[in-house]
């Protein structure tokens, strides 16, 4: 079984600040990490590799320094890594990103593609599903568990919905997007680290993926950011640790104080 996991390097904070004058992210001093949902996606792939045997390739699109998360992924147990990097990819929205990734994936062999549900910097949850559409393969999003039925080679997949869970069966080729609540990703091992740094990362540019350049980077991005701003800081609020009956009374009296009811 060949598995490809799509991962992204993101700033390590949900409290990232925005420069109020320029509306851009303040990236200085914020370390970069592997996106948590993607890391759980990688853990799903590595667990399938442990249980059933598989080759696991990780792929990311980003600047050259995104190599760091590819090394981390290989130190966790991925077999090889692909870095899609080119100035022509810069400024990509989700559509242009998924076009580039799908272009690279068309040149590879795979049975299962795994992506994280969404990145903590953009929170769109669009790239994984868009890749599946470009490749014209089935997709199951919001996955929290996956098992392989070794008798008929299908996957049994647990998908989270707003109401609960769905248990689905699917064949390959298939793309799934994984939630970070699916698992606790393993740590890199010491020997994994030592061997990962000696592995060669396959670097691909726009010329290698046969995608119309009009569909890549800023040119291929219909999304335009109108404005970005920080949420106003709210005070911590008051906490009452009381029985429900008493709590109802407190809530009603506060709402009345503010003339809301």
């Amino acid at each position, binding site marked *: 079984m060949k598995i490809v996991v799509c991962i992204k390097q993101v700033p390590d904070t949900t409290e990232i600040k925005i420069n109020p004058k320029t509306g851009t992210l303040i990236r200085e001093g914020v370390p970069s990490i592997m996106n948590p949902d993607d890391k759980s996606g990688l853990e799903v792939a590595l667990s399938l590799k442990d249980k059933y045997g598989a080759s696991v390739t990780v792929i990311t699109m980003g600047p050259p320094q995104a190599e760091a998360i590819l090394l*981390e992924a290989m*130190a966790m147990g991925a077999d090889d890594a692909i870095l899609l990097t080119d100035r022509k990819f810069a400024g990509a929205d989700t559509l242009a990103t998924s076009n580039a990734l799908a272009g690279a994936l068309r040149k590879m062999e795979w049975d299962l593609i795994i992506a994280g549900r969404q990145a903590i910097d953009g929170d769109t949850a669009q790239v994984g599903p868009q890749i599946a559409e470009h490749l014209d393969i089935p997709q199951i999003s919001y996955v929290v568990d996956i098992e392989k039925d070794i008798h008929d080679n299908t996957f049994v997949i647990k998908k989270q919905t707003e109401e609960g869970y769905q248990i689905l069966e699917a064949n390959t080729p298939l793309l799934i997007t994984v939630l970070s609540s699916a698992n606790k990703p393993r*740590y890199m*091992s*010491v*020997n994994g*680290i*030592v061997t990962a740094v000696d592995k060669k990362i396959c670097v691909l540019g726009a010329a290698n993926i046969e995608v119309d350049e009009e569909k890549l980077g800023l040119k291929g991005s219909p999304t335009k950011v109108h404005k970005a701003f920080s949420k106003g800081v709210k005070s911590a609020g008051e906490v009452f640790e009381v029985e429900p009956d008493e709590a109802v009374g407190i809530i009603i009296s506060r709402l009345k104080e503010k003339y809301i009811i």
Partner: protein
Amino acid sequence: MNFNLDKKQSLFKQMITEFADKEIKPIAAEIDENERFPTESVEKMAKLGIFGIPVPTQYGGAGGDNVMYSIAVEELSRVCGTTGVIVSAHTSLCVAPILEHGNEEQKNKYLPKLCSGEWLGAFGLTEPNAGTDASAQQTTAVPDGDNYILNGSKIFITNAGYAHVYVILAMTDKSQGVRGITAFIVEEGTPGFSVGKKELKLGIRASATCELIFENCVIPKENLLGKVGGGFSIAMKTLDGGRIGIAAQALGIAQGAIDETIKYTKERKQFGKSISFFQNTQFQMADLYTKVEASRLLVRSAAFKKDSGVSYSCDAAMAKLYASETAMEVTTKAVQFHGGYGYTREYPVERMMRDAKITEIYEGTSEVQRMVIAAKMFK
């Protein structure tokens, strides 16, 4: 000249930092309070390859280096001094002498299981009457056919009772003085070998520190480590390496106290503002952090020299001397910055202060480090 960690070292630092924060820090206070050896942490670290970092893969090690090993002990000790010394004693005092002085059979027999963490290692040199004067060994090893018969006792042995493999020093020929000391590999469960009293300690309370007792303990000759009479040299070389581990432990404890104090002084308000704004706080903390960073450079330099295969004995002594005394100073001041709260077990700095003290004592006291350094200067 380059002071940067290489790719594998920085990736390793990223991993061990996260591991220490998520897996070790949450139980540090509890294991200290209950003096409980953290077997669950040992299992977790074993899975990641922490018990064989600087050992070649051919012997089941991770194929890393001593800089990585020192980073491991530093980061673990940043949140828990006990966990740091479990790894340090195992790696520097048991794995290293077998790797550096063992024959192929011994390396193949012991290292894979020690590196995988299936077996934990320990080292026995200190005796009731042989501390800083390690040459005054009273434990004897008498040849008897294909065996040696060991009699005597060792004290203050880290990892005792949890270790499977012990490197033990014993006198094979008293008339030869230090040249009459020989090293042996002793396995747990060997008849005549038992673990005695567990020490109740000021700090590193979750680490197992016990007496070892040898009563007509029969050790096969193939377990002789190095040459007959070569034990003292093995012990001294082993302690040179061990000092990098303890220096890293001290460094980690000091860094942990700095981190806690920055956090606390930012939060603590007196006279209407955070005490971190006061110049007294800032100037003292600047001095302490400078000493911690100087310790780090000494530790990394000693580890780098060991990896480079050049003499590092004096460097390790300087690293241990400076880092341990810095750890004591930083943690004591950290408690002071925390005021009354710092004196309580609600905050980790009192534990750090208790843990720091041992780094000035074991694997050669600060006085011994000064002797080692001066011996090189005035030779």
